[in-house]
């Protein structure tokens, strides 16, 4: 250990090197150690060696870990509002996602979710759109009926797939590969590069770019601890998180393209879907199941850069929101 360091931060990570969250954490570590001249020292603990996300977060106030890099949606066990990160088809694509999270709305969501949970949320990293990998060919919502897939054991994910008539099955990640081999499930959903790291190309021939969820990785710290830090350290943490975000956001698109090429080379079929068809299918999903998130979802949808006259719509919605709070 470094003797000059005043702050030894344990960074908890679910993943290992090569995964978006882990690599983002490496950028964060390098940057903050550089700007603080080693006053802050960050040790990375990958592979959930400090515990699962939920375990780490619930004991972060007492120091089981000092910082974690994970998606905003993992906070959903602390506040329903965090489900906004896992809602299906509220973004049209990467540009839309980036526009939202780099806007005031992005800051607002981080702030409000942070208020509810007493965490400090820093940065915003694109971790890749979630896609479906399957043993059969599917391109329309109709095809998805009866589709048996592994889904995260979280309410939003299960509802998302039930909504389209699929049969989601919660399974531990360690059992998914075998389950796919043995056809217990017909597919799974995850960001493309994560799916590739899990070697699902060996058991799933079809990679279907459903792009159903765009989720943001953030750095999560206990808010009281963050506020207790001297201002320059706080500023350094913010700067490092922004640096890591910039690095990862430009890296991930290339990485997705690279992965796609590797998939094609290994004989997998990468399928595009008509995203609009799915967006229309899910148009009422949020209002039906998550009315408390309707406002955010509508404001996100209104910021779609592809929308005609997006700018005006955005303004009117924000005006409505302002009136609502007034």
């Amino acid at each position, binding site marked *: 250990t470094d003797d000059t360091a005043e702050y030894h931060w344990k960074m908890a990570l679910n993943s290992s090197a090569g995964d978006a969250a882990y690599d983002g954490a490496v950028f964060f570590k390098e940057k903050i150690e550089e700007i603080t001249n080693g006053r802050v020292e960050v040790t990375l603990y990958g592979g959930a060696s400090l515990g699962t996300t939920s375990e780490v*977060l619930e004991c972060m*106030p007492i120091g089981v870990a000092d910082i974690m890099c994970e998606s905003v949606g993992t906070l959903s*066990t*602390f506040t329903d509002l965090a489900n906004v990160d896992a809602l299906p088809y509220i973004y049209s694509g990467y540009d839309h996602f980036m526009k939202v999270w780099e806007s005031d709305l992005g800051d607002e969501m981080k702030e409000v979710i942070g208020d509810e949970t007493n965490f400090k949320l820093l940065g915003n990293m694109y971790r890749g759109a979630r896609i479906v990998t399957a043993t059969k060919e599917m391109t329309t919502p109709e095809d998805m009926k009866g589709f048996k897939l592994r889904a995260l054991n979280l309410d939003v994910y*299960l509802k998302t797939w*039930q909504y389209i008539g699929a049969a989601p099955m919660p399974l531990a990640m360690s059992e998914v590969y075998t389950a796919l081999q043995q056809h217990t499930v017909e597919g799974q959903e995850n960001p493309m590069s994560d799916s590739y790291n899990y070697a699902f190309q060996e058991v799933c021939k079809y990679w279907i770019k459903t792009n159903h969820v765009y989720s943001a990785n953030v750095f999560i710290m206990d808010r009281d601890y963050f506020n207790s830090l001297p201002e320059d350290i706080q500023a350094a943490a913010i700067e490092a998180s922004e640096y890591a975000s910039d690095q990862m956001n430009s890296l991930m698109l290339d990485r997705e393209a690279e992965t796609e090429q590797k998939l094609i080379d290994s004989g997998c079929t990468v399928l595009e879907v008509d995203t609009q068809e799915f967006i229309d299918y899910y148009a009422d999903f949020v209002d039906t199941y998550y009315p408390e998130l309707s406002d955010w979802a509508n404001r996100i949808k209104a910021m779609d850069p592809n929308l005609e006259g997006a700018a005006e719509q955005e303004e009117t919605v924000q005006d409505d929101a302002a009136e609502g709070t007034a």
Partner: protein
Amino acid sequence: MLKKYTKFLDGLESVEKVFLVVTAAIMVIVIAYQVVLRYVFNASNAWSEELARYLFIYDVFIGSAIALRKNSHLQVDVFLNLMKERTKYIYTIVVTILGILFLAVLFVYSISLCKISAVNITPGLQVSMAIPYACMPLGAVLMILTSFEVIGKNVEKLKQCKKGADV
């Protein structure tokens, strides 16, 4: 005094056993239900596996208290077997006191953990994490209660041992 206490623990143990039987039945049924749901109705739910898992952990702590009474916790007894009867009783008393200290720490800090985690809601059953975590303070108390009996019994044996030696 010890007899009365043993009787009290006997009563407690019957309650624990009923709990074990009922929860084990629920665990088996819930997991089987999950299989039926998947194959017959092509559906799944988020709560069944979680319910079985938490009941299972409650059973571990309650079963652990009964195991303590039956002296069935695993240990390396090579060294123990070399001891004379008397030394063994004294040694068991010391170890049990050590156990009580550990369990007391577990009790205090698992309650604190329940408080810290109260806001964390489980994904399946949608209850506070404090509810599953509560099996730890519960188990610690049950095990401490059992430990007192273990000490009492060993003190008694020790006394008999002494008497035997005197005669």
